[in-house]
Structures are given as structure tokens and as C-alpha cells.
């Protein structure tokens, strides 16, 4: 198990360096001089020379590449032009919790709904309901996303007034607040993480029970525990709770919008991987034996369709992260995505590239987490790597 995780970790680190190299060559390949892009012309010449040195932009291409990589690892991504002299890492760090929150919730929502719908869809072939669900799924998947987000705002925020129009908090309410937004975000992420750890622990424990009933009981206790711990977490923080609620209220519409679009992709992918599984011999055997359809679907097919779904999860990550950029921009959610866009528009190259790199890290880490989770949950892999 540890060996497996270790190997994946190494792979991810290698992938990340490959990615950094790509980003570096992206910068190199652009027209004009990299230093000109990296250094605001309004900054005095002497200061420019200093930045050139700090960014390691001197020397030949290989030296530049090496110093780019090393300074990246040391957390030195240069200095923002827009927010000079703030270091890029600081500008990005401020945005990370906000994006992480949006992203985690939307991903979970999209995958849970997408998976269960896709599973049912694969089972129901041909009928009108399959066609209509598929067509609307595809339409959601291919929808012109910013346009869709605007329609959602028009309908649910401006029209019905259920949600705030944009932003992530109510200024008047947060005036003189004892916390900063990021402190609250950090607590919210912490509570989610606690819940998630309990949940994963439960699932691992349950998958090791041979007796089905015990496994179910373990799970039941685990879920209750996870929910209780999150609930308890916030019950204890009476002072911070209203602020967290304010943020949650602002986040519902962007999360739902993003999840709606992303879930369609998951659903379609689950459906096709389920279909492939359904043609496997053992399913046909089970059918021949007269095992109830629902049991085949849930116990035999879905379980084995999990591997392709994990793959699709990885593919979908890119989709969700990309959609996140649009979501944050349309909803004025000041996260990494909107930072990336505003920095690009403002020609703040260090921040734009830094945000891109961190988005890459986000994708890689999410991939790693899913991989590990899958390895932990899937008995075949566990046996293979041998405890």
C-alpha cells in the first residue's frame, strides 16, 4: 500500500516537473523577450536588473530553466506587477482557500450525482427517459458555460432572489468582523477535512469486514460520526458560525452551477464504462443465474465500472478546474481562477503563470488523492500491492 502511494507520489512529482518545464517553454516560445514579459516596463531599469537576477532569467536556456525550477521549488515565483512588490506566492496564497472550497464542493456534488445517474442510465437502454436524460446531459456538458452561468444568476439570484448576485460575503455584515474571510475559509476546510478523514477511515474499515452486515454497521456509524463531527465542529464555533453561513450562502449558486455542468460529463462517462462492463461475461452469467437486476447493477456492474469512473474523474478534474475559472469570474468569486484571468488581462505575467502552475498542482494533487482513495477502496489493487 505504502509502496503504491510512494510510487504514485514520485510519478506525480515527475509529472509536476514536466509541467513546470512545459510552462517554462511556453514562456520561452512566446514572441519577444521573456524578461520583457516578466518585468513591468514602468519599473525602473535598475530594479528590473534586480528582478532579472532574482527570477533567474539570465544565462542560457538551460540555466534559465534550472533556476526557474529551483526558485519555484523554493516558493519564489517572482513579484507581482499589479501588486508590486508583493511576492506572487503571497498573492496566490490569499486566493487558494477560496478556490479550494468551491472546487471541493462542486467536485463532490458533481461526482456523486453524476455517478449514480450514469449508473441508472446505463441500465435503462433505449427508452424515452434514456434519450431525454442523455440529450439534456450532453446539452449541459456542451453548454456555453459563461452564458449558462449568467442565465443561472438571472434566474435564481436576480429573478427569484434566492441567492446573492455575486461575491463571497456580505460587506455590511463583515464590517468589524473579528475574523478575516480566509480564517473562516480555513476553518471550513478543516471541518470538511475532518469529515472526509472519518469517512475514508470508515470506508476502509468497512471494506475489510468480511461479514456484510458488520460492514454496513461500520459504515452507518462512520457516516453518523462524520456528520456529527462536522456539525459539532460548527456548534462549538458559535461566534464564527454566522460568518461561515454567510459564505456558504454565497457559495451555493456558483457550486451548483459548476456541478451541474460537470456532473453531465461524469454521467456520460459512467454510462459508457458501465455499458462496457455489462457486456462482460460474468454479468451475463449473473443474469443467466437469475440474480435480480438491481443487485447486478449495484453489486456487480457498478463496482467494476469504478475503475473507468476513477479515470473519468481524473479527466473531469481538468474540466471542473477549467470551469472554475469561468465560474469565479462570472460570480465575482475572488479565487485563483479569477486571479488568473485578471492577471492575464493586466499583463501581470508572473501572477498569471504562477496561478497556472498552482492550478496544475491542484489537478495533480486531486489526481493523487483519488488514486490513493481508489487503491484503498478497491480490494483488487490492495491485494496486488500486497499488505
Amino acid at each position: 500500500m505504502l509502496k503504491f502511494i510512494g510510487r504514485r507520489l514520485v510519478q506525480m512529482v515527475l509529472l509536476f516537473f514536466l509541467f513546470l518545464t512545459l510552462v517554462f517553454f511556453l514562456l520561452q516560445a512566446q514572441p519577444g523577450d521573456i524578461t520583457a514579459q516578466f518585468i513591468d516596463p514602468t519599473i525602473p531599469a535598475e530594479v528590473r536588473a534586480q528582478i532579472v537576477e532574482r527570477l533567474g532569467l539570465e544565462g542560457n536556456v538551460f540555466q534559465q530553466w534550472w533556476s526557474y525550477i529551483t526558485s519555484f521549488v523554493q516558493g519564489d515565483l517572482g513579484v507581482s506587477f499589479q501588486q508590486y512588490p508583493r511576492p506572487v506566492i503571497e498573492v496566490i496564497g490569499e486566493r487558494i482557500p477560496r478556490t479550494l472550497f468551491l472546487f471541493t464542493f462542486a467536485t463532490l456534488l458533481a461526482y456523486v450525482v453524476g455517478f449514480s445517474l450514469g449508473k441508472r442510465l446505463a441500465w435503462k437502454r433505449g427508452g424515452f427517459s434514456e434519450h431525454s436524460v442523455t440529450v439534456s446531459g450532453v446539452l449541459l456538458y456542451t453548454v456555453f458555460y459563461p452564458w449558462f452561468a449568467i442565465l443561472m444568476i438571472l434566474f435564481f439570484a436576480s429573478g427569484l432572489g434566492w441567492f446573492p448576485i455575486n461575491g463571497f460575503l456580505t460587506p455590511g455584515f463583515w464590517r468589524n468582523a473579528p475574523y478575516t474571510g480566509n480564517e473562516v475559509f480555513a476553518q471550513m476546510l478543516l471541518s470538511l477535512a475532518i469529515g472526509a478523514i472519518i469517512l475514508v477511515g470508515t470506508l476502509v474499515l468497512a471494506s475489510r469486514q468480511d461479514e456484510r452486515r458488520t460492514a454496513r454497521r461500520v459504515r452507518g456509524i462512520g457516516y453518523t460520526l462524520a456528520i456529527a463531527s462536522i456539525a459539532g465542529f460548527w456548534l462549538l464555533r458559535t461566534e464564527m458560525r454566522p460568518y461561515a453561513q454567510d459564505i456558504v450562502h454565497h457559495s451555493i449558486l456558483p457550486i451548483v452551477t459548476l456541478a451541474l455542468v460537470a456532473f453531465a460529463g461524469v454521467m456520460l462517462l459512467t454510462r459508457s464504462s458501465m455499458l462496457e462492463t455489462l457486456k462482460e461475461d460474468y454479468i451475463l452469467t449473473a443474469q443467466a443465474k437469475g440474480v435480480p437486476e438491481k443487485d447486478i447493477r449495484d453489486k456487480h456492474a457498478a463496482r467494476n465500472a469504478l475503475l473507468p469512473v476513477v479515470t473519468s474523474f481524473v479527466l473531469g478534474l481538468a474540466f471542473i478546474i477549467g470551469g472554475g475559472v469561468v465560474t469565479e469570474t462570472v460570480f465575482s468569486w475572488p479565487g485563483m481562477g479569477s486571479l488568473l484571468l485578471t492577471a492575464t488581462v493586466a499583463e501581470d505575467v508572473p501572477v498569471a503563470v504562477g496561478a497556472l502552475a498552482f492550478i496544475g498542482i491542484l489537478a495533480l494533487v486531486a489526481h493523487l488523492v483519488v488514486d490513493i482513495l481508489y487503491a484503498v477502496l478497491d480490494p483488487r489493487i490492495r491485494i496486488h500491492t500486497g499488505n
Partner: protein
Amino acid sequence: MVIKEPEASDALTVEEEAHVALGVGDERPERLWKVRLKLAWTGLKRNWKLFRENKIGLLGLFIIVLFAVMALAYPVLRSVGPWQDDGIYDPVTGYEAPVNEFEIVPTEADVVDSATQMDVATAQLWCFGVLPGETCSIPLQPAPPSEGHLLGTDPLGRDIASQLFFSTRAAFLLGLIAAVVTVGVATTVGSAAAFYGGWFDNFMMRLADLVLLLPLIPILIVMSGLWTINLVLLGVLIGILSGFGGTAIVLKSQALSVKVKPFLDAARVSGGSNGHLIFKHIIPNVLPLSFLFMMFTVTEAVSLEATLSFFGLLNIDMSWGIMLNTAQSQGYLRTGLEYWWLLIPAGIAVTLLAAGFFFVGRAMDEVINPRLRSR
């Protein structure tokens, strides 16, 4: 639109069928093309039959044909049709706006007929510096749909319908470029990786993993900050990025299954060079599958262009994304459905065309991959 050659993971490859038809070892290459053509034709018919059963695929095909008709109709409408006047119907520089004249009165209380009179304070918003007694002419732009402008005009007085039709062509062009580049890149990379194996394969596949993992939107956004990106360059970029990613991986596994077929060994034994083997034997057998991915690439390209244009990041005269960008930058997007003709047509067009290609691609997937077919 439809698969040109029979191809299925569990079916015979083209070459095998050809060999079977000719009898193995009976090398008469001058007749090979005829056999291939015939095979292609029968395959086409067979696949069309399968495709026809797929209602969603047909829907997709219908959508694509509809847009193709729009694209083809545009030059006709502009050259001999009702949109001949460049000054009015040009999608970028055209202009027409009916003008409403208002008589300016001192206060709101003096307004008797609000259709022809306006108080001086309100009038300042349109005719800055106007005084009571003067007239203020307000051109109606964007204008709602009328006989001359079936879908109304945009905030700059340009014909929406003309823009919509004009942009269709751009969307197809972009999709075509992206699709061809994707297939070119993916087929080459996939085949080469499968053929050479070893570190090359390893490197290429890790690269593919990486590209697969990375969201295209942020990458393209950053690129648009570094380069000036036009339609063609965008097509090429999308093509390269999606060609190096998932498509390459799938095509590689397809190429691998070809690599182990006996005819390849035969060709190798008879002294074919590596290049010859890749281009003459592996690629032709991988190509049909790659047509499938062309469809998905078009979907992706259409969506990406629209999104990037919406944010004003591309250097394109007119496209569906630009239409929404114009409406947005002039502040018409959040006004609800009052100016629906600015909001709805372009949004629907992007969504539908992207979906059309996706439907077709999905149906083709089911044709090629028998496991996905209905029972």
C-alpha cells in the same frame, strides 16, 4: 460525417480483410486500392445502417447539417439574397438604427406624450448638453427583431442574424482546423509510441497524462496573454493540446493492437522500413478511430472559442463568443430577458453546435465499439 472504413476493436483490420480478400501472400498491390475502396463502401453502408438506428446520433447529424446550411447560406444571402447592403448587413461594420426624435421639455411634469417628449434631465443620458425646446434623437440600438432585421440588431446597430450566420462559418473552420490537427498529432504520436515503445513510449504517455490532467481554459487564457491569438492559431493550439492528451492514449492502444497482427510481421520480414511500417500499415488502421475523436475535438474547440471570446481574449472580428462579449461589454447581459435577442441566439448556437458534434461522436462511438450498442 460517417466512418469511412469498417473498424471495430474486435473486427478485422482493413489490411487483414484485404489480405483475406486477396489471399495471403498474393501480393498484387496495384489492385489493392480497388479492394480497399470496395471494402470502404460496404463498410460505410454497414456503419450507416448502424448509425441510423441511433436516434441521438441522427439528431446530432441534423443539427450539424442545419448549421452547415447556415454557413453555406451566408454568402448566398449576402451576394444575391436580402443582405446585399454592406453598410447594413456586414456583420462587423454594418449599421442601421431607426431614430426616435424626442422634444425636450423642462421637467418631467411637462411630458404629455412620452413617445415623443422627454424631460431635460433624463435626456442628458442620451443627448448630453441638450436644452429644453431642442430635440434629442435617440437611435434605437439594439433594436428588437423587425422585418429588416429578423433577430434585431446589436448594441452597435449591427444585424444579429447576419452575425449569427457569418459566425457559423468561423465555427466550422475552427472545428475543422482543430480536428485535423488533433488527429494528425494524435495518430502520429500514438502510432509512433506504440511502434517504438520503450522510453519514447513512456515519455509520450507521461506527456499525454499531463496534458490530459491540465485544464485547457486556464492554459489558453495565459497563452492569450502572451500571444495574439486568432482563429487559426486557436484551432492549431486546441488541436495540439487535445491531440497530445487523451486521444493519443486511445490511439496508441489501438495501434498496439495492430502492431501485434501477423501482417505487420510479414511486412517487417519483407523489409519494410520503420517509417514505411508506421505510415503504410499502422496509421491507416488507427485512422478510422481517430475520426471519432475529431467530433469530440470540434465540440471542445467550439466551446473554448466561445468562452475565450466571451472574455475578450481572442483577436477575432466576429464569432458567437464575440456577440455575447459585445452584449456584455455594453452592459446588456444582466438586464434579464428584455434584450433576449442579444443573449439567446448566440448562446444557443454555441451550445447546439457543440452538442451536435458530441451527439454524432457518441453515436459513432457506439457504431465502432459494439459493446456500447443496444442489446
